[in-house]
């Protein structure tokens, strides 16, 4: 699973969540927009966190050096 595939998964999940709120609690345009904003913000936050950790391990400059005990 590469970077793009997982990113796509995040996008899809975000999209599905948006649809779900739209279908499950449709309460007028302003509230829907509010829900969508929340979901997008949350998805972006989660994606950023994942992407940062993923990128940092993609081409590691240092590698795990096991402790003596193991």
């Amino acid at each position, binding site marked *: *699973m*590469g970077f793009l595939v*997982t990113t796509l998964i995040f996008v899809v999940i975000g999209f599905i969540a948006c649809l779900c709120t739209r279908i499950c609690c449709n*309460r*007028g*345009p*302003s*509230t829907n*927009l*509010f829900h969508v*904003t*929340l979901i997008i*913000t*949350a998805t972006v*936050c*989660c994606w*950023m*966190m*994942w992407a*940062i*950790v*993923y*990128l*940092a*391990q*993609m*081409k*590691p*400059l*240092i*590698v*795990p*050096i*096991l*402790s*003596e005990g*193991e």
Partner: protein
Amino acid sequence: MRKEKQYKPTASKSLGDNNSGKSLPEPVAYIAWYRSTMDLLRSEPMQLVHLIIPVESAYRSISYLGDLGLFQFKDLNSEKSPFQRTYAAQIKRCGEMARKLRFFQEQMTKAGFSTSARSARSSDVDLDNLEVKLGELEAELIEINANNENLQRTYNELLEYRLVLQKAGDFFYSAQSIATSQRREVEIQHLGEGSIDSPLLLEREMITDPSKQVKLGSVSGLVPRQNSMAFEKILFRATRGNVFLKQSLIEGPVIDPVSGEKADKNVFVVFYTGERAKNKIMKICEAFGANRYPFMEDLGKQYQTITEVSGRISELKTTIDFGLVHRSNLLQTIGYQFEQWNLLVKKEKSIYHTLNMLSIDVTKKCLVAEGWCPVFATNQIQNALQQATADSNSQIGAIFQVLHTKELPPTYFRTNKFTSAFQEIVDAYGIAKYQEANPGVYTIVTFPFLFAVMFGDWGHGICLLLATLYFIIREKKFSSQKLGDITEMIFGGRYVILMMAIFSIYTGLIYNEFFSVPFELFGPSAYGCRDPSCRDATTVGLIKVRATYPFGVDLKWHGSRSELPFLNSLKMKMSILLGVSQMNLGTILSYYNAKSFGNYLNIWHQFVPQMIFLNSLFGYLSLLIIVKWCTGSQADLYHVMIYMFLSPTDNLGENQLFVGQKFLQLVLLLLALVAVPWMLFPKPFLLKKQHQERHQGQSYAVLHNSDDPLEMERDHDSHSHEEFEFNEIFVHQLIHTIEFVLGAVSNTASYLRLWALSLAHSELSSVFYDKVLLLAWGFKNVVILIVGIIVFIFATVGVLLVMETLSAFLHALRLHWVEFQNKFYEGNGYKFYPFSFALLSEEL
């Protein structure tokens, strides 16, 4: 919590309003468009409203508006003292009733009755009837209390009397027996007269005694034990030793009839001679709070009184018990309806209090109210007023009139039980200015997210989740009962904690920590040995043999020697990236603010240079971080950033990450350098120009056509000195610029707390796991293992779940209040406090 309840009833109705847009008056339609931007981002549009209400329907109108709870009255009589106002008499009446209710409550708590939860019996109580009823009940209760007190006092006195009779009787009995035995001795000696060794003096004394006999008086009673020594001394001194005092302890406390409190006491009997001594003794007794009781020396009479007293005691006892039963019955009946009455009285009082805020018309036929209400509530308010007019059979209806004003309206966000706690977080910093972009929208996600970055452990996250689910599931039960301070706080923030827990589970999965233990959940580790023998795994290290671990931190890092350098570098860079993103979000919100207020000056001379400055330095740093990760370059980012300022024209050498980096750096540096004066200078000068243009339109335009700024300034000063102070504006802008430029650096550094706290959290939890749980496991001893587990649980709960949650919460709070909100949030508004009965019952 309070808010949530208050807004609930209105939320559903108002939604209906929004949808049925056609029937709404014009301003509402405009606002409906405005509202469709986003819930919670802008506070509700408000309007200043003028109500003219006929006197006869005023009370009902206010009462209905209180039920609605969407109108904030302005005090139009603020110069009048409370006594000068129209409804001062009614308020006084309500105050009196409230006093009676307080008296009842006091009596009930004293008697150990709790005011029963709101009784279902809601028979419509009229205020006048209630007043009469309260008066009667109070009189009855006071009478019962007075009677009971008298009876109790008599009862206690009799008890004391009985004690005195018993104890003093003992003295007399023993004294008499001694005396008779002595007399007998003397008589014997008399018989054997002439014996040489008979004491001469005694003999004479004894013989002369009966003739000279002085009548000895006695006073008996009870004296508090702690005073008894002093009492004795004073008696002795006052009478120069011419008294005889006898005391005896009473086992167990006695109830003092005067104070009604339990006290340890002594029974005393004082013998004295003469009237003067008697007076002195009486006074001393009074001073020491010693209760005196008559005492008969005659034995027969003593017995008689004792039986008499005992009889009266038992009689009194039954009377008192009967009185108490009567009283508790009365209190119980009060208790049933107490809450209802209390609420009613509070409502009445608040209605009259509000009525007092209205100014009375000259004709004395109508009351004039002024106040704020949300635009969406226009129809509801009008309906309520119509209803009131109809219900009170008034000839004329109330008039609802929207006023146009330049005054800043109050800020009112319609929140629900989920968003209210987040809004409280923002409000704790400052109430948003009217219709300013509300950071609460993003806080709902970013606050728990930043918390979770510092609290990343999915084991701990699950613990938090379970704890908060307990509160959420039992929500109904908890919200109806009174909670302790801390429980109340946790309960209020249950949805915040829920979000925090969910995000902690997510970040915990990213950090791959479950109580600091990593799991291989998302596929195999990317790292493996260099060769089958794995010789240099502990010296040179493993090698990446597979694709990157797809989700989160590779578990091979855990416990390795290079774990800390890797995690430190990762978390530090992550903090900067997250921080720069959030600060950009804040700056972008300032753009929306400027746009919504139509302030294009702020867009072009504040928002744009700010974005340029922030991103040409820290945006570039973020870019470098990402490029370095993607390319695996060994460039030193510190070096790059520092020499970007010190010698921007130098060759980057081995620190070059991409082609054209030097050129880009030069451009960015120039942009940043340009952005600072751009932020500082244009805005104040343009403001001045705007003001002058406006001013010129009003005054003599021809004379002021010269472009000389100095002359303009002089002119300007002479005209409207207090309206536009250039210096002030300039200094303000200077401060703002310095704050932003320095803040860009210090705020980015401040986001490093994300790194520090998450590091501390993971280190602490791994210490508890390794040094407590694994150590205890190593002993292969059940007792040690159990002790180890207990210590581990307490350390996890106490340190990680409570203290770390608190500290991560506070740091997330700071990041939002300072680093995020100072980019756009003014927070100088004031809150909308509608007149609402729902609020009143919350305060009970």
